[in-house]
């Protein structure tokens, strides 16, 4: 207890600095992965992607980032085992942030496709096992999280496959694809707004004190969906048939209809990413803050202070503005195989799955889900060539990231413990 009162403000400053560092890293590196399918399809420019990401990541973090933050902060470690020694949690969470941040820097410098989520979860488990003991970890929660890492990309792939097949059925394989695209386009845009808002709003938002019944959430989501659909319709109506381009590629005009529609999936994806990944930075930060503010009590049920969510959102936006810009430009060159219809299917599916995971409080990897969604489109015989080596790399980075995060966090944990006690 004395340690907390003596060093409280130091811990608080360290937590904010490390937390901001982590969210800055997410904004600098990870956002580019989330926006990859949108920018790669050429539907939006890098500049537009930055703008969309800055706004929607922030809204996503603020509106729907609470549940995953709760999991990272309280769900993984059994606070009961810490009673009497709250400083251990403080050391551990600080160590986890530092470990994940350092590991992400090493990995991205070497070009490995690592996940921020995997790093932070590995780090928290690592310090808990090394510093407190095996019993300190909620293994059933870890089991759920690890299962979600496998299931979510598969789910993303399946959803993308279904969306792609529906676009084929309703539009591409219809008698007059262009007319059908204009007819169904607004419906798909409605779907983007409807799914994302329904999942986010379902039964309300605890940390924002917004309580909704199932019916109320359904109504709110439908209204939101209709508004987006209407805006979509206005944008889609401006697309004109391009007969010259159609001669070279018969579906050129149809693809042009999907280009403005990608703006909505890009927003949805940025929102989804903000709702899931901001927690990786602010979850540990929130845990430290709550220990210090309560004067040493490891409160399981403490309210998540909104300023922390705000701080996380700001961290991401700053990361985006300082370095994310450049990272995004590296994928800014159009991926010709990622046409707007394919990009739309993959991004909508990925965004929906990520938001769903966020609502259930599961920290998932946005990048892996996006990769899974693109694979799903490919499974419909819809993409010329997918390089499966990426999947192998992801599996390898999985196997390396978890232990690396764990070992680093354990080392930092002992460093802090030694320094402060």
């Amino acid at each position, binding site marked *: 207890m004395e340690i907390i009162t003596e060093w409280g403000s130091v811990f608080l400053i360290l937590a904010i600095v490390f937390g901001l560092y982590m969210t800055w890293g997410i904004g600098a590196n990870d956002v580019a992965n989330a926006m990859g399918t949108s920018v790669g399809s050429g539907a939006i420019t890098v500049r537009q992607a930055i703008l969309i990401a800055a706004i929607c990541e922030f809204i996503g973090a603020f509106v729907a980032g609470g549940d995953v933050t709760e999991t990272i902060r309280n769900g993984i470690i059994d606070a009961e085992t810490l009673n009497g020694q709250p400083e251990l949690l403080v050391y551990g969470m600080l160590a986890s942030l530092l470990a994940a941040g350092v590991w992400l820097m090493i990995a*991205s410098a070497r070009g490995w496709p690592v996940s921020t989520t995997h790093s932070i979860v590995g780090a928290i488990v690592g310090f808990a096992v090394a510093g407190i003991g095996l019993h300190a970890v909620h293994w059933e929660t870890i089991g759920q999280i690890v299962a979600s890492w496998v299931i979510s990309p598969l789910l993303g792939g399946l959803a993308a496959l279904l969306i792609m097949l529906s676009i084929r059925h309703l539009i591409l394989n219809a008698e007059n694809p262009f007319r059908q695209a204009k007819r169904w386009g607004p419906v798909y845009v409605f779907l983007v707004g409807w799914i994302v808002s329904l999942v986010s709003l379902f039964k309300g938002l605890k940390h924002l004190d917004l309580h909704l019944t199932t019916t109320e959430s359904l109504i709110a989501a439908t209204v939101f969906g209709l508004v987006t659909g209407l805006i979509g319709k206005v944008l889609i109506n401006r697309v004109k048939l391009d007969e010259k381009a159609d001669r070279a590629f018969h579906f050129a005009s149809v693809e042009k209809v999907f280009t403005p529609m990608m703006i909505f999936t890009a927003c949805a994806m940025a929102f989804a990413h903000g709702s899931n990944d901001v927690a990786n930075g602010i979850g540990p930060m929130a845990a430290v803050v709550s220990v210090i503010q309560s004067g040493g009590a490891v409160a399981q049920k403490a309210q998540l202070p909104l300023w922390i969510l705000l701080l996380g959102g700001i961290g991401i936006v700053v990361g985006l503005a300082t370095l994310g810009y450049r990272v995004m430009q590296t994928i800014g060159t159009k991926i010709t195989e990622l046409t707007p219809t394919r990009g739309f299917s993959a991004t909508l599916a990925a965004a929906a799955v990520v938001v769903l995971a966020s609502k259930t409080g599961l920290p998932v990897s946005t990048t892996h889900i996006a990769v899974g969604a693109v694979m799903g489109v490919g499974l419909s015989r819809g993409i010329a060539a997918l390089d499966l080596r990426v999947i192998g790399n992801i599996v390898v980075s999985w196997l390396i990231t978890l232990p690396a995060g764990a070992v680093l966090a354990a080392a930092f944990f002992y460093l802090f413990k030694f320094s402060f006690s």
Partner: protein
Amino acid sequence: MKTTNPIAALFGRSPFGPTQEHMRLVQSAVVQLPALVEALGTADASDITSRQDAIRAPVPQASALAREIRLHLPRSLFMPVDRRDLLELLDRQEWIGREVRAIADLPLQHAMRLPTELHTALLNLTRSATATCQQATAIVDEIDELIETGFRGPEATRVETMIQTLDRLAGETDAQVPALARDLFTPIDDASQGDALPHATLQLTHQLVRALGALANRAARIGDHLLPLIAR
């Protein structure tokens, strides 16, 4: 800082665009065959040489492209068409290139002059073979549309119809071959006539006729190969 974006890395280099480009290159040689046959008809040596060169020019370019495609086709690529099927398609396209080259090389064997009375028929056969190859090229050009629609629906039906047309064109070309050969050999049987064709002319013309028939058949084999890929 090195950044490998997994989304960008996921998209391998598509071999389909280059494969279509390969077929277009081959076809750019094929379309010049009628001009060569016309030149052979007038037996203008310099005209023949320039036509030969024009036909031969795109062939090494096409071969280089085919080699590039094969080199950049790692087994880790996941494609809507089996890797072996794609390589087989490329193979069949290359056979058209070889066939065209062989035709362009015929006048190298001996100064060539076509029998005057067969000019029109030979030119018709050449145009017919060229049209067959043109149809095969148009079908290969539809591959990106097929991928867009998942090899199904009206687009697949359209390509099926195109393949039927290809078969018809190849059949029409093929039907001209025996008739032309007969017209070529008839004067020999009629030995009493002193104006039988010189042996070399007879040989080379016969080779030309057969090669043009073979060219059309090679083109039809592209359709044969693509048809089961749509039906899959």
